[in-house]
């Protein structure tokens, strides 16, 4: 029989105990040392920020209104109920907001004292305030849309000198180029540096794209697709050619659409 000497060091059982204690220590260290990541989705506070001229509902979070004389005349915003009030608990003005003198928009300060309101008046005031906010928002949106339209009119590309590019002129080829270039600018996508695609476009008498035949692909599949999309996009709103069917060969580059 094989004989063994007794071990003088701890056997497996002792080592398991040591290992357990070690794991316990590491576990406690991780738990109480904040080594484990904690996932607590943070609630984003709802803030109302005036992007144009509206008063700031939450002075701490919002953008203060400009205090320059050129600033639009707007009514003074209601004083907040607390330095950092939630929107639901926002304090409302006891009376109608008064326009500030000299166009100076009064940005509510964090130190402003909350106005005392009677409990019965709160709901009525809140509705009035909301109406006023909605009205101001509508006005701001109208103004913004008007500005955008004006800008578009100024920057609209023209098919021929003096024209706005939105209607067929005597030079129908230029009109088509202009429309296609606008559409290509919108749909632009490319992988190569300067792809060139040559194609023949045929506009039917009804103004629809009767045929679009690529005679020489650019080799850039993405650009070819962008050109196809641009032709489809532009083809939706083309004026009919003045002399029946119109056939034209074009060179598509990322920066321009020219006649071959």
């Amino acid at each position: 029989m094989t004989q063994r000497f007794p071990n003088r060091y701890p056997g497996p059982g002792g080592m398991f105990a040591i290992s357990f204690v070690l794991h316990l220590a590491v576990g406690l260290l991780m738990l109480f040392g904040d080594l484990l990541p904690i996932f607590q989705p943070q609630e984003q506070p709802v803030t109302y920020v005036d992007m144009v001229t509206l008063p700031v509902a939450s002075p701490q979070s919002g953008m203060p209104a400009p205090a320059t004389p050129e600033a639009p005349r707007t009514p003074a915003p209601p004083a907040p109920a607390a330095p950092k009030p939630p929107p639901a608990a926002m304090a409302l003005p006891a009376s109608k907001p008064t326009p500030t003198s000299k166009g100076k928009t009064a940005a509510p300060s964090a130190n402003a004292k909350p106005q005392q309101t009677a409990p019965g008046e709160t709901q009525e005031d809140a509705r009035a305030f909301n109406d006023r906010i909605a009205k101001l928002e509508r006005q701001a949106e109208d103004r913004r849309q008007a500005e955008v339209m004006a800008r578009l009119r100024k920057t609209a590309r023209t098919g021929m000198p003096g024209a706005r590019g939105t209607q067929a002129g005597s030079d129908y080829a230029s009109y088509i180029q202009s429309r296609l270039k606008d559409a290509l600018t919108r749909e632009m996508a490319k992988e190569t540096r300067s792809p060139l695609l040559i194609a023949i476009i045929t506009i039917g008498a009804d103004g629809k794209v009767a045929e679009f035949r690529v005679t020489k692909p650019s080799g850039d599949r993405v650009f070819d697709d962008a050109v196809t999309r641009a032709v489809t996009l532009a083809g939706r709103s083309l004026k009919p050619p003045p002399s029946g069917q119109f056939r034209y060969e074009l060179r598509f580059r990322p920066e321009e659409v020219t006649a071959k």
Partner: protein
Amino acid sequence: MGMLASTGLVVKLVLIVLLYFSVVSWGIIFYKLLQIYRANGASERFMEFFYKSKRFDTIGSQLDRFENSPLTVLFKEGYAELRRLQEKVEQKADPNVISTDLGGIDNISRALRRATTSEITRLEKYLTFLATTGSTAPFIGLFGTVWGIMSAFQNIGQSGSASLAVVAPGIAEALIATAIGLVAAIPAVMGYNHFQQRIRVLISEMDSFSTEFLNIVQRNFAGR
């Protein structure tokens, strides 16, 4: 704590299993470290003593000094077998001569081989658990993760929102199972490979010692 507490029952069970694997693996690693390193040290000292000594009975009386070495077990077994053979041939003219015709050397060789096998078994004991941990713990962790992600997607479907705040915590809680699985498996695999290599060295030393022991016996005790 909150992250672990919010995991599902299956993921918790997986984590408990993995924790058990990790605790036992580390226990085995500590035990084997101590056992193999002591065996190495004692073997080196024993071999030095063995080559310096002139007589087997002197070595036999000093074996307690090298108790952790597997070579001492081999020597003890071989020497015991040698003594038994000597007792059997005492009535012969020369008591120090073992007849090879009776298979005396083979007997000692078999005794040494048996002791070697026994020592290898002792040295490799529990290593299977390390191999099992290394190969299965990541899969157990992966199972927990897959289950956790399934639960997370169910919760996402019920909440009706797919925002990052809804998706991320569930996935992160599920991934912790894979992380713990890897934490359990990596040391186990490293320990297993390391101990295998050290045990191979010890086996080679035992083979060398057996050959040396048989040579000495044949040279000094066996007649003709």
